[in-house]
């Protein structure tokens, strides 16, 4: 009971500290007056009595502090006072404080910058209700292709899945909008209304669409995305109920909120051409009666049932597959699905959006974390050295009864004050650093708008600061733990020489740790450097210099000719290309549907004459027996324009496109696979052999050297370059509307800066037709560079981190070796007096540095072996245990250490023997 009362007393007193202070003052005043009266009564004059009473009482201020110490709930009071003392103490040694603050500030700044990117991109939840439950659903197969979901799967899952609360299917389309008198390309999402059960958003204005809006025959309705509503309609809410576009008969029913941004172009599944961001969202009409388990063309998004995991959902959807395929009969049977290795992939939406960047960011956080540790070790070293300089003072305080706890509190307070100041500096640096980081980062970094300094980032910086402060405040204390009483410490201190043995050992240890950390970072940087070099060394098979590319979409055909629309469109593209070629500085122009290394590769069954797979009567299954090849649709002169090298024959020519082209170009790999040891020229092939009556045959006109198509890292595979136009009866029944122009500049200023010609090209295109939208303007060099952007991003950062680590490590070595020289001044003096050669002395000093380095390198190599494994997914053509990298890094570190020890060593030989011996 009275324990409880005591506790309450303490709480109350803490809460009303002001009152307590006043009451104590009153009590003290009363005491002194009372004592004064007593003394006066004893016959002493009033003034003298007052003085004596004060003297007897002692230092009233100290009493007040002590009393405060006696209550102060949870010691908060004491902590604050300790911090104030520490600040006062540090102000007396500004050099030390500044060095420590800057060092720790750099470490915390770098760490906080990377953390703020990680926080914005990866850690912050998506802006939806229970966003963690939203998953993207797709499929994959034995070829590792990424597939969407068939409509049959959508209906089956919707009706049966217990792991999914809601499921939606959608398409991403990009369509030119004509008649507006301006080039306009609409990015559209066409989705089942269930999308809004998955992504629960409330409309900013108006309403969302419902199942009635998606019913067949219902009037067309559209939702506008926030940015499109701002850009095109000036943010006017009055647009609700009106036609979205002049005479479009599409009624705007609502405006979506700004954070409706779950859709990212996914070129591997995208049905239409990819777009940057959607502008309108429309209901997708799907008839359950017509649904098939066929084309895996829809994007799937779903909300997990409470408690369900993505893995559980994937397992359940997998188990549905045979029944679903039987319910919704299509081109796939349970057997063909099994043989194809089709299986559902369920990935949390955030992971789907962020992708492999998440891993890179964690690795980078680890790297800057190492720099922070090195910075902490460096400051800890300063602390240890300072404790050494103050060893006498500390020894005296200890022998006067200061407990270990009091010393620890003082030291830790100093550490925390310094690291908090460093942390504040660090947050400032992080603001700048984040911007620099984003400048380096891959251009299409997702959720980039989420990156910033928010409370989470601040809490991170503060937490790291306090932790760092504790570390380097406590480390120097370890050396005092052995000294049982202050007397021993004092005696040891006054003897001077042997005093800091513990301290020396600790400082050496700290520097060795720095060397080890630096080694780990430099090994990481080295491995990425070699990866980068390997990527750069790859011959892409084309020459990106001086080539500008852009996506264009021709409006509906204007020329009514006898030829089919496909042919007339090809003729229009040729006409457009010929206009562009009149621009000064342009050497040639061409078009293609698929730029190399730009995502989206397509494989088709391709058979060559004489090796046609046996086709049983009308059986499509025979298709699967034809080998596949990568297929690139190209216009006349495309391969020449990108600088591909022809091994034999010629490129497709404009003349070939006057009617349905009959020719094809193949690469060396294809020729070697299908016609080994023979010439490919003049041979014939058929794409998607289907029906001998209708198959369209192409004759090989040329053979090009192997290109990298899918990615730089993917070795070339057999590829055919088909004309962009093909007969409508070849089984496709469609043509390509969306083309990429490839413009090669002639030598000179245009070639040096292809983008400078863009204005002229744009004018020429719009002179041809004002409504042709132009998108994705980029140099071919930029397309290529994107392939190693993530590697170079990580490489530059880790290289900088490693460089800083190396520098800090070298400074550490320099400091410790210098200190050793100072300690050994007397010994060195004697040796010089006895005639030791300067070389011998220098060597003995450098050996000290080398010893520390050897220890650090030994530990670091082991650590690097263990740690570098996390990089393996980013590496290309180099093992994580690469001997060259390890050897190189060890050499660099060792040389740096020797150089850092040379300065102090030279000073050692300059010791004046007479001075040195007399000094003690």
């Amino acid at each position, binding site marked *: 009971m009275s324990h409880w009362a*005591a506790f309450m007393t303490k709480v109350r007193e803490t809460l009303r500290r002001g009152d307590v202070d006043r009451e104590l003052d009153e009590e003290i005043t*009363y*005491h002194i007056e009372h*004592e004064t009266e*007593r003394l006066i009564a004893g016959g002493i004059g009033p003034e003298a009595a007052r003085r004596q009473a004060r003297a007897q009482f*002692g*230092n009233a201020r100290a*009493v007040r502090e002590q009393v405060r110490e006696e*209550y102060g709930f949870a010691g908060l009071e004491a902590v604050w006072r300790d911090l104030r003392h520490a600040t006062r103490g540090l102000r007396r040694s500004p050099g030390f404080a500044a060095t420590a603050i800057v060092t720790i500030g750099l470490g915390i700044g770098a760490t906080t910058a990377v953390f703020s990117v990680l926080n914005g991109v990866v850690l912050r939840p998506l802006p939806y209700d229970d966003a963690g439950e939203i998953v993207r659903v797709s499929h994959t197969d034995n070829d590792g292709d990424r597939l969407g979901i068939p409509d049959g799967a959508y209906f089956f899952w919707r009706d049966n899945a217990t792991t999914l609360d809601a499921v939606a299917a959608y398409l991403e389309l990009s369509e030119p909008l004509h008649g507006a008198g301006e080039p306009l390309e609409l990015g559209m999402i066409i989705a089942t209304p269930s999308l809004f059960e998955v992504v629960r958003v409330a409309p900013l204005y108006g309403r969302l669409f419902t199942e009635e809006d998606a019913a067949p025959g219902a009037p067309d309705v559209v939702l506008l995305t926030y940015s499109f509503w701002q850009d095109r309609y000036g943010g006017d809410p009055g647009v609700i109920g009106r036609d979205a576009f002049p005479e479009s008969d599409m009624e705007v029913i609502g405006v979506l909120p700004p954070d409706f941004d779950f859709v990212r172009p996914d070129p591997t599944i995208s049905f239409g051409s990819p777009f940057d961001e959607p502008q309108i969202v429309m209901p997708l009409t799907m008839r359950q009666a017509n649904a098939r388990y066929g084309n895996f063309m829809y994007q799937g998004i779903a909300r997990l049932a409470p408690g369900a995991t993505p893995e559980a959902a994937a397992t359940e959807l997998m188990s549905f597959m045979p029944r679903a395929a039987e319910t919704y009969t299509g081109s796939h049977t349970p057997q063909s699905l099994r043989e194809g290795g089709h299986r559902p992939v369920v990935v949390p939406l955030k992971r789907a959006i962020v992708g492999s960047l998440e891993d890179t960011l964690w690795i980078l956080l680890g790297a800057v974390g190492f720099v922070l540790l090195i910075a902490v070790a460096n400051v800890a070293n300063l602390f240890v050295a300072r404790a050494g300089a103050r060893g006498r003072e500390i020894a005296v305080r200890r022998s006067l009864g200061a407990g270990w706890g009091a010393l620890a509190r003082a030291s830790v307070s100093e550490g925390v004050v310094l690291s908090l100041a460093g942390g504040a500096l660090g947050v400032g640096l992080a603001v700048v650093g984040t911007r620099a980081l984003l400048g380096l980062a891959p251009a299409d970094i997702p959720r980039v708008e989420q990156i910033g300094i928010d409370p989470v980032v601040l809490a991170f910086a503060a937490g790291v600061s306090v932790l760092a402060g504790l570390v380097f405040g406590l480390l120097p204390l370890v050396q005092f733990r052995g000294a049982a009483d202050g007397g021993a410490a004092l005696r040891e201190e006054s003897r001077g020489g042997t005093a800091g043995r513990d301290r020396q050992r600790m400082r050496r240890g700290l520097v060795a740790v720095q060397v080890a950390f630096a080694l780990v970072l430099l090994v990481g940087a080295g491995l990425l450097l070699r990866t980068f070099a390997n990527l750069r060394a790859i011959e892409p098979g084309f020459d990106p210099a001086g080539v500008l590319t852009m996506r264009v979409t021709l409006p509906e055909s204007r020329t009514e000719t006898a030829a089919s629309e496909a042919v007339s469109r090809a003729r229009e593209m040729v006409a457009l290309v010929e206009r562009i070629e009149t621009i000064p500085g342009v050497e040639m122009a061409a078009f293609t549907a698929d730029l190399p290394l730009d995502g989206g590769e397509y494989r088709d069954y391709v058979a060559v004459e004489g090796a046609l797979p046996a086709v049983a009567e009308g059986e499509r299954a025979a298709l699967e027996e034809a080998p596949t090849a990568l297929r690139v649709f190209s216009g006349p002169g495309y391969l020449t324009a990108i600088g591909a090298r022809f091994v034999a024959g010629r490129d497709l020519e404009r003349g070939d496109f006057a009617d349905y082209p009959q020719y094809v170009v193949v690469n060396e790999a294809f020729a070697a696979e299908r016609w080994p040891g023979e010439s490919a020229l003049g041979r014939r092939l058929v794409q998607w052999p289907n029906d001998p009556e209708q198959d369209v045959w192409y004759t090989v006109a040329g053979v090009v050297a192997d290109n990298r198509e899918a990615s730089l890292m993917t070795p070339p595979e057999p590829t055919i370059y088909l004309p962009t136009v093909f007969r409508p009866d070849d089984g496709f029944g469609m043509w390509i509307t969306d083309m990429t122009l490839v413009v090669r500049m002639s030598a000179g200023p245009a070639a040096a800066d292809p983008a400078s010609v863009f204005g002229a090209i744009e004018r020429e295109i719009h002179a041809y037709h004002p409504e042709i939208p132009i998108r994705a303007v980029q140099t071919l060099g930029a397309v290529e560079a994107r392939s190693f952007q993530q590697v170079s991003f990580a490489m530059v950062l880790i290289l900088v981190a490693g460089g800083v680590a190396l520098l800090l490590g070298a400074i550490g070595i320099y400091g410790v070796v210098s200190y050793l020289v100072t300690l050994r001044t007397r010994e060195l003096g004697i040796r010089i007096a006895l005639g030791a050669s300067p070389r011998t002395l220098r060597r003995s000093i450098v050996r000290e540095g080398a010893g520390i380095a050897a220890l650090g390198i030994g530990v670091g190599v082991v650590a690097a072996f263990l740690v570098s494994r996390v990089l393996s997914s980013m590496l290309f053509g180099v093992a994580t245990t690469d001997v060259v990298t390890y050897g190189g890094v060890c050499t660099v570190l060792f040389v740096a250490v020797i150089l850092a020890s040379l300065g102090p060593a030279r000073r050692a030989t300059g010791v004046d023997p007479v001075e040195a011996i007399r000094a003690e």
Partner: protein
Amino acid sequence: MSLIRSDLLRGTLDLLILKTLTLEPMHGWGVAQRIRQLSDEVFDVNQGSMYPALRRLQRKGWVTSEWRVTDNNRRARYYTLTPLGRRQLADEEEQWELSSAAVDRVLKLALQGG
């Protein structure tokens, strides 16, 4: 015993204060005055150190305090021993007697030996 000196002093002062308060509730000056008198002016400790000690005892629940008006009509804080404090005092006195007896014995032995 591994007590450091300050703890010893602190403990002694606490003991003296508790002992003084067994007589009657007193204010700080009164306690100091009484200790001085009772110890024949041997314990003329720094009077200021009385207050942190009183606060400490109060926190441990051994004494309580309240503001009262003194005979000559002035406000002063009076300290009272609690039952818990009384028990603590008994314990400490016993402890003290045991240890001082031990010290006595050692001293006597040492004197005989010397």
